């Protein structure tokens, strides 16, 4: 990875982190009135994959999609405006945090029913194949989604048609407050399973952004050149509560200790430390990056807060396309 790329990557991770944390901070103002699923702690995948995808590559995602949206280059102001329920929101306030879209970067939509966007991603990939273009359709999912039948149907369909799909599965060990232990067979490898289903699969540390970048840069060209779909499992951890701005290690489904263990693996801290150690960045530069990002995020919140609410009567529009 070039130094330039590394800085980009760091910036992208930080953008996601700081944006999520800004939502957490301001959520108690009661102005963002919709459920939010923050991805703090999971920024590495979103940033690395997002950076490696081309602008016209397609992305679909899930309820926890802020990072994927920003990673792909989605408009921050419009994302926040959407969470605030404003007309300038990326979905004009109709969708809320769980339904993001940015057609400028082919972020085609995140949806809130577990597994719902998977076959949609496959359909996008089908058109790429028909058009013989070199695009990719990237599908983000959580490990809970593996339990939905539609995941297996989608994998099968993509394998049969050798579609240009990258499955990005962030395994953060939990689905809401349910541990993997009660949802999937013990010691079963998700990647090995998907491999046996017919898609070349990998499983890597989801907090090591270097490795993610490396693996993805190797596999994406293969997908583009028609070698078929790829599936990558990223082992990671969400820091905050399943839904909302707080922490929930005290309520009983996971331990503070486990959380602290994962917090030490902070993908951003790890990466930054390495960059510093290798003299690829200075503390000064980091400060500047942080400051710029915080500034940008503050401006975006201001923009979102100032944007008007859509009129109630607008609710009756947009049911049918013309």
């Amino acid at each position, binding site marked *: 990875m070039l130094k330039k790329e590394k800085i980009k990557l760091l910036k992208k991770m930080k953008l996601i982190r700081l944006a999520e944390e800004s939502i957490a901070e301001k959520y108690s103002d009661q102005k963002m009135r919709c459920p939010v699923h923050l991805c703090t702690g999971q920024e590495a995948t979103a940033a690395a994959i997002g950076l490696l995808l081309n602008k016209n590559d397609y992305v679909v995602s899930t309820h926890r999609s802020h990072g994927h949206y920003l990673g792909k280059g989605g408009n921050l102001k419009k994302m926040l405006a959407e969470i605030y329920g404003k007309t300038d929101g990326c979905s004009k306030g*109709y*969708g809320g945090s769980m339904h993001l879209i940015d057609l400028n970067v082919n972020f085609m939509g995140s949806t809130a*029913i577990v597994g719902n*966007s998977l076959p949609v991603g496959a359909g996008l990939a089908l058109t790429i194949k028909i058009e013989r273009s070199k695009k990719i*359709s990237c599908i983000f999912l959580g490990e809970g989604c593996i339990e939905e039948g539609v995941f297996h*149907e989608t994998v099968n*369909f993509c394998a049969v048609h050798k579609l240009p799909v990258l499955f990005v599965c962030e395994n953060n060990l939990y689905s809401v407050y349910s541990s993997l232990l009660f949802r999937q067979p013990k010691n079963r490898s998700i990647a090995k399973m998907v491999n046996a289903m017919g898609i070349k699969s990998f499983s890597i540390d989801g907090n090591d952004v270097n490795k993610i970048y490396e693996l993805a840069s190797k596999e994406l060209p293969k997908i583009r050149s028609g070698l078929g779909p790829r599936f990558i499992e990223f082992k990671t951890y969400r820091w905050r509560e399943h839904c909302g701005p707080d922490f929930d290690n005290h309520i009983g489904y996971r331990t503070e200790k486990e959380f602290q263990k994962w917090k030490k693996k902070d993908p951003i801290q790890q990466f930054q430390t390495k960059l510093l150690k290798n003299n690829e960045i200075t503390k000064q530069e980091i400060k500047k990056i942080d400051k710029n990002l915080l500034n940008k995020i503050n401006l975006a919140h201001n923009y979102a807060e100032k944007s008007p609410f859509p009129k109630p009567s607008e609710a009756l529009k947009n049911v049918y396309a013309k």
Partner: protein
Amino acid sequence: MTNRKISFVRAINEALFIAMKKEKKVICFGLGVDDPMGTFGTTVGLQEEFGIERVFDMPTSENTLTGVSIGAGLAGYRSVISHLRVDFFLLAMDQLVNGAAKWHYMFGGKTSVPITIRLIVGRGWGQGPTHSQSLQSWFAHIPGLKVVMPSTAYNAKGLLIASIFDNNPVIFIEHRWLHNQIGYVPKNEYKIPLQKAKIVKKGNDITIVSISFMVVEAIKAINFLNQHKISCELIDLRTISPIDYLTINRSVKKTGRLLVLDTDNANVSVASEIVARISMNLFNFLKTAPKMIALPDVPTPSSFGLTKNFYPGSKEIVEKILKILKKSINTNKLSNSNDLHDVPGSWFKGPF
């Protein structure tokens, strides 16, 4: 040219050919679309003409099938997908309702999903509980879906072309017993606008609102009643959702009486909806209580014995109308001459 008569199946097939020729981004997929039976003949020849990339078979994965059509839609493609029975489509309700129906709305109108979903209603020959559901009531209940139910070959072709080029998800329901009906169909492209009902027969004593196969039964009933100087206005709804209330209202204002016919179970049905809407909005125009005829609220049984009186037909329509008009006529002549109530015609010998 009005003597160009072809079957409902061929009309569908022609519509598909025309749409796919007209627009390269129309694609067609579903279980068995390219098999020797070609979805009861409706998709025959398509793959040969348009290639395996635009016309292809699917794994037995109904939910994903639907989701794929949404994704293709987002990339500008118009999918025509099909299920040999409505019942199989129950596996795809998440993609249909949480996805297709709301996509345009929940992303603020920024994208849309032009999908046509062909569903076939089974009937007779022991199809039974899981192969003969109609379910338009469900689809009509969901905002964002359009629901179409053609009754003739002519309607089938024009409505299918209109559905394919509509920018919304359209549920296109074909009754298996209509597939072999023959009727006048122009050779060229034509569209029948969605949400436009058709007045099939003019009349003054009562308004009959009907859909799909019930139109066939209604026509028989009306012809019989005509002989007894009872004049019915028959409206073929064609589009079940949204409903063309303009046409219905105008007719009910004239006749003051309403009978709605449906192919679905009665409870919470499109028929109930129309009866309710007219009762609420045209209460003062109604001379008598509005009525409806639909399927009994039970699953469909399989046995020849159990299905004997299961499906209401022309006789039940006539009797209901006589009751509404407080008239009595001998209706014995109307009893089904066909002993085999479970086949669309004597040519049908099973097995499905």
